[in-house]
């Protein structure tokens, strides 16, 4: 390593985003949005997929380009349990095999396309991606979500958007404590990360900011308690409780994405809210939608930063920043062959932040904002 001279300028280092896509389960969205018996186009992992539910009721995912002459199956039609190509009506089953060619006596040898491993769970559709072509293991199974599809909780409130940057940016949020104040207007009071195996967890509590008054007619929010874990490279479950003057709202927030290309991804979130005596059906759904809108604003704030920022492999960190390098070391496990996963990528790492100094700085800033708000606005003479 070269020694730094006091007047030396630090340069940003960045390799181009990887051309390989992460190994793991990726959520494509809600089952109900793919279950209408029509083919759906999904741009993912640098290619085009067709998602369709056939007669049997199972949702299938195949490469969308027909192995005959390259027609786009997602522009075709579901016929029985098969997807029919719009170009020459070749029929493909969910197992990837060509079942029949109506104008031919015999299906040729090797008439087999890529069938992707799927999972329907808790109202969500997942696809397994592995550059080595192996099946998912039990170890990396997506855990069940308590409350999903339960009468005691609302239905999923879902949101989807396309972001034109590499998906590492959203992963960095797991450890980026300070941006929750500066970008999202939160006030973190507790922050800890634990990485172990294929799971990366963020524990975060926050206070409400007194310089952001509650919207007219809404109860005053006091703070939040959140335990959010990525299970694999792209699917985060956040047990998120909002504390209000008159009680708690228990919610589950999903934050998930799948890559379209090296430089774009589909970002999605879903939210369910627990109903209670003080929060009956309609109020709980209204709360899910209101919280969803709030989270949407949060994502838009991130996107605004990502749109303009540089990719950086050598971030310069202060002691009050989170473990960015260690998170990226964890994330790297999904971009190498299973045989090349190193112990340090999966070994347990803990990082608990001391928020004394940030809290003081932010309380001072909030107090200054309140003082400014209290001052009568000067009007032009």
């Amino acid at each position: 390593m070269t020694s730094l001279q006091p007047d030396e300028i630090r340069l940003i280092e960045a390799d181009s985003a990887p051309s390989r896509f992460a190994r793991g389960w990726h959520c494509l969205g809600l089952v109900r949005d793919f279950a209408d018996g029509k083919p759906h186009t999904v741009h993912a992992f640098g290619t085009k997929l067709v998602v369709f539910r056939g007669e049997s009721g199972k949702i299938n995912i195949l490469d969308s380009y027909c192995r005959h002459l390259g027609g786009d199956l997602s522009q075709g039609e579901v016929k029985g349990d098969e997807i029919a190509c719009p170009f020459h009506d070749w029929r493909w089953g969910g197992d990837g095999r060509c079942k029949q060619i109506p104008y031919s006596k015999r299906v040729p040898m090797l008439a087999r396309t890529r069938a992707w491993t799927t999972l329907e769970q808790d109202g969500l559709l997942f696809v397994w991606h592995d550059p080595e072509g192996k099946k998912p293991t039990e170890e990396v199974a997506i855990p069940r979500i308590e409350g999903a599809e339960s009468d005691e909780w609302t239905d999923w409130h879902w949101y989807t958007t396309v972001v034109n940057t590499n998906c590492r940016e959203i992963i960095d949020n797991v450890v980026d404590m300070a941006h929750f104040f500066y970008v999202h207007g939160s006030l973190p009071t507790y922050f800890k990360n634990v990485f172990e195996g294929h799971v990366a967890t963020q524990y975060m509590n926050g206070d409400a900011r007194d310089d952001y008054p509650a919207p007219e007619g809404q109860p005053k929010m006091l703070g939040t308690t959140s335990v959010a874990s990525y299970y694999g490279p792209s699917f985060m479950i956040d047990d998120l409780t909002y504390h209000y003057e008159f009680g708690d709202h228990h919610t589950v927030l999903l934050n998930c994405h799948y890559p379209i290309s090296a430089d774009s991804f589909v970002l999605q979130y879903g939210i369910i809210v627990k109903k209670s005596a003080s929060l009956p059906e309609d109020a709980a759904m209204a709360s899910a939608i209101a919280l969803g809108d709030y989270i949407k604003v949060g994502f838009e704030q991130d996107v605004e930063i990502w749109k303009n920022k540089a990719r950086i492999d050598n971030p310069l960190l202060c002691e009050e920043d989170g473990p960015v390098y260690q998170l990226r070391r964890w994330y790297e496990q999904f971009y190498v062959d299973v045989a090349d996963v190193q112990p340090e990528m999966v070994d347990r790492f803990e990082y608990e932040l001391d928020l004394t100094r940030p809290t003081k700085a932010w309380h001072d800033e909030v107090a200054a904002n309140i003082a400014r708000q209290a001052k009568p606005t000067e009007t032009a003479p």
Partner: protein
Amino acid sequence: MSELRTDNRLDDVPMQPLRCQHCAARLLVRKSTVHQTSLQWNAEAVEACAELGASPMPGPALAGCSRLKESLEAEVAAGRLRIVQTV
């Protein structure tokens, strides 16, 4: 894939070894302040730990071992574990 770079904070003050008084797990530790701690475990250390070794996965990983605190405090008290930023 990008070459993994090192945390600039560790260039200044690296992590140092620690042995837990309870279970003899050997790990690496770094303390930024009295209340800020990073811990690097390996598989062997997690297995040795009475609390983490018994933690079921998957699920949010257990936040930490409650017994390790004493060992950390003892190291600091004995002057063997440096705190990067003393307030």
